[in-house]
């Protein structure tokens, strides 16, 4: 079985890891789509799992590049310039604090929703280009709520291609059964 796990929200990490291991143990192949590696920093993917960081791929999109420039690179660069010599440690702490308290919050609360709303198809295009092209999956496991819209886009993608889509499920335990 070739399984594609959509785990973009990273809210059910344990279930993803356990079920991925389950598929691998039965000789299957697993690809896990995640939004940000940092959300998974305390987890270990079983060896043999292909992890695709969609968030990282999305950063190549021009609006995301601009956001990174305005929100992260310019302010942090300025702080680095100011914080030379004896101020280096102070600047390092200021950058860390700025990223956590301001930039990450603005990214999460302003830019990310804006990005999802205005360029909603971009992620689907990236998934098509980097994950689906030339690969067929038997099952798509929707692993958290934030992956649900992407699962719908995935189904549309297969419909447009005119091919039978993979089975969609919320757990591999249900993957071998017919749709109810």
């Amino acid at each position, binding site marked *: 079985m070739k399984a594609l796990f959509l785990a973009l*929200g990273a*809210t*059910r990490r344990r279930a993803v890891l356990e079920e991925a291991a389950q598929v691998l143990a039965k000789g299957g192949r697993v690809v896990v789509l995640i939004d940000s590696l940092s959300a998974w920093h305390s987890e270990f993917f079983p060896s043999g799992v292909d992890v695709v960081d969609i968030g990282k791929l999305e950063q190549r999109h021009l609006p995301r590049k601009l956001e990174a420039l305005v929100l992260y690179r310019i302010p942090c660069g300025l702080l680095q310039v100011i914080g030379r010599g004896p101020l280096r440690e102070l600047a390092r702490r200021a950058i860390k604090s700025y990223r956590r308290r301001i930039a990450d919050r603005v990214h999460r*609360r302003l830019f990310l*929703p804006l990005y*999802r*709303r205005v360029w909603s198809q971009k992620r689907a295009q990236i998934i098509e280009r980097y994950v689906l092209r030339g690969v067929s999956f038997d099952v798509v496991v*929707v692993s*958290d*709520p*934030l992956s*649900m*819209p992407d*699962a*719908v886009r995935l*189904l549309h993608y297969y419909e447009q291609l005119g091919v039978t889509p993979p*089975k*969609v*499920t*919320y*757990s591999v*335990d*249900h*993957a071998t*059964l*017919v*749709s*109810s």
Partner: protein
Amino acid sequence: MRAMVEATAPGCDQATVYHCDAWVSRTTRYEDELLQQAQKTLLPRANTTCPTVGGATLRYIPVPVQRGSSFARLSEYHRAILGAALAKKPIDASVVHAHVGLPSGWAALHHARPDARFFVTEHATFLDRILAEPDARIMYDKVLHRCDALFAVGEGLRQLLIEAFPHHRDRIRIVPNPISFEIPRPEPVTQLRRWLFVGGLIPRKGVQWLLEAFAECYADDPKLTLSLVGEGALADSLKERAVELGVDQAVFFRGAVSPDEALRLMREHDLLVHPSRLETFGMTIVEAIAAGMPVLVTRCGGPEETLAGIEKEAGELIPVEDNADSIVAGYRRLRARFPDGVDLERARRVLAEKYGYPAVARAHHSAWFLSVPNDAPAKPGLVGGAI
């Protein structure tokens, strides 16, 4: 919920469990609407069904829920998503039994056939918080209004519901949770050295006092061990505290385990210590006695009711205190009279008669199928929250 299905489904022609599982995420209002819409599109096309215990069929239905939602809103999410899973058709069952009033009862209420008999089991420890929300209270009232009967798992819950809804007094009765007494312990407990805790690592379970008490008893007997089964907000601080107390080599954090694994661990340990602040029933305590182990448990509502008449046979009941003293004293009293001062076989027998699968299944079946014509199929649909 799993035990209830395992106990009751075998008496039915067909049983389907709708497991509506809240998938919580931090979202904006706009994103939340997108998720709801997406899930409604996905559900009719998704494989959600598999066989489960007791010969029943399980339909797994994730419900996307915005973090911080009120109980009323949570119930509305469940209602809408269950509706999408059913493709707007009613639940095809002559009996619908919901596990907890809100959110499952509310969802089931809207999708039960008009002629279906409707039941609810309530065991939520946070029922008082649900009823404190005005909207949720109104919804609960409507659930009760439609109910043929509501089964509270303990007297404390029944009283709370009767006080809140005196006009529904006649519908509210006690039917306990079922417990399996099937698998016996291979060897009886001979010493009370391997302590076990099963539950959330949260303040309400009193687990921080348990660790302090264990450290004190460990100082007397370095052969003691403590296994903590479960997860929760206190996990990290408990690990740190175990190191500070110098007992980290004797304390084992097992994390969350499956129900079967928890029962297996009970058969491998000597004493269940359950210092909870509040329990409506205390299922873990009955499971422990079913697994042949004595219990050291607080008088926190459910346990003293469950163990009424067999307190000494089952182990030791202690008061709820915000310190480790009562646990330590209770352990020492129990150890001093163990094994001759307890009678686990008798405790097991008494509890099996009250909470064993056959007893609880009988209570359910007599309620479900009473005054149903003989030729009508016995076909319940069970709507539950997390199993």
